[in-house]
């Protein structure tokens, strides 16, 4: 049976790892490389790494830094931030990314999603959508440029369009819940889950393990992402999986699957 993934999100700004509240008031929370090393050691299910200022530069993603991060990352890695052209994706995959996440560029150039999917496969494209509730309070509008620009797009329509153009997963983030530790916007996650037939990753607001259980059991998320909860509280991805397992959600427990890699025996060849 497919396992529900618990995915730490690493937001990266210039030289360090940051975390904000509502996509603002960024705090430095360390450096990227040690964080990747720790998460790899703990065998997390997957990691998402997003350069939150890359969209401002109108330039290529920082391939050099991503290459350094990729070399340390033994778990599946999704890289986002500043992807504007399909050619950049091959370089990211060579640098250690396994999937890429697109957001801002897709609004102006939705064909970017189709072009990446055509070359690298649908499964390679994670479409990231950042939203705020609209004036009615029961609907959501999409924002680009790290939450700064309103696009006017309705979240369900946009999610369906991205799916139609070849996105393999949707990473849905509530800007208002981001960093608050108050829980995912379950209605939002559920709205996106029912709008598309591709997997949906819930993001924005996780503060307790129960929030993750709710995102899966109540809202139907295929995976749960979190940042502040892992940066600022004692809670860990392993703890989250134990809580999910206790709530009968299937999760992977790498510690029970201890296999020797046999590195020692290979060394005799060298």
């Amino acid at each position, binding site marked *: 049976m497919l396992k529900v993934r618990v995915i730490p999100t690493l937001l990266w700004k210039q030289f360090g790892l940051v975390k904000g509240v509502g996509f603002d008031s960024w705090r430095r929370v360390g450096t990227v490389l040690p964080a990747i090393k720790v998460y790899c050691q703990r065998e997390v299910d997957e990691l998402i790494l997003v350069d939150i200022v890359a969209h401002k530069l109108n330039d290529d993603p920082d391939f050099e830094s991503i290459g350094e991060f990729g070399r340390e990352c033994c778990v599946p890695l999704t890289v986002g931030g500043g992807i504007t052209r399909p050619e950049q994706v091959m370089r990211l995959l060579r640098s250690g990314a396994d999937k890429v996440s697109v957001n801002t560029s897709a609004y102006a150039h939705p064909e970017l999603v189709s072009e990446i999917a055509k*070359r690298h496969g649908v499964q390679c494209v994670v479409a990231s959508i950042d939203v705020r509730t609209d004036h009615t309070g029961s609907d959501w509008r999409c924002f680009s440029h790290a939450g700064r620009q309103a696009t006017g797009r309705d979240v369900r329509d946009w999610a369906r369009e991205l799916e139609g153009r070849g996105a393999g997963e949707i990473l849905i983030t509530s800007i208002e819940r981001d960093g608050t530790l108050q829980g995912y916007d379950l209605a939002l996650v559920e709205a996106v889950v029912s709008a598309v037939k591709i997997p949906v990753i819930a993001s924005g607001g996780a503060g307790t393990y129960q929030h993750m259980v709710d995102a899966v059991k109540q809202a139907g998320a295929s995976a749960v992402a979190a940042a502040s909860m892992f940066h600022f509280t004692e809670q860990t991805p392993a703890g989250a999986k134990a809580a999910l397992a206790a709530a009968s959600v299937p999760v992977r427990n790498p510690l029970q699957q201890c296999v020797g890699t046999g590195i020692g025996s290979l060394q005799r060849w060298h």
Partner: protein
Amino acid sequence: MRVGVIDYGVGNLGSVLRALDELRVTPILITRAVDMDSVDSLILPGVGSFADCAGRLAKDAWSQALRDQVLGGHRPLLGVCVGMQLLASCSLEGADKDSPGGVQGLGFVPGRVEHLRALGCTLRVPHVGWNEVVQRETKCDLLDGIPNGTDFYFVHSYAFVPDDPADLLATTDYGVSVAAAVGRGRIWGTQFHPEKSSRAGLRLLRNFIEGPVC
């Protein structure tokens, strides 16, 4: 042990090279078909769409060189993800009005590649994440030392259906039974990504490099 990683313009090469490094094997990136002579075994990496990948293999003389190297029995080959699917006779990914029967693959392991939905899967596609790999009863060296039911990392929308059930080494359950690993002679394929599947994945890569027999 010289392991060649075929660089045909697609694939998560960074991750594959990294995993081989971790096994203390020096990977050799093969950018020209003629360079295959210098290695002991070959890995055909994944992350791509079948039609695009098959076109690249056909265009740069990779297909013929792989046939000579692999079918001639000189070098074992491991195809990963779409690299495994390329071992099939044909795929319906990228099929269009010009080629309604699908796009031709290398044909090393007879079979076809179909969309998970066409196989009856009603769950969310792509199939993304960690899933249990159930091994067939006859043990196979490629999976040596890996407990039955170990989770591996999958990310795909299409699946390999081998013509001969004897070529099926392992399966996974995603609403339907999906081929997780295939093998014929010294040709192997895994639908999951061993390079991203933690210790079990590294163990599988080591088994491959040491030259399994099935």
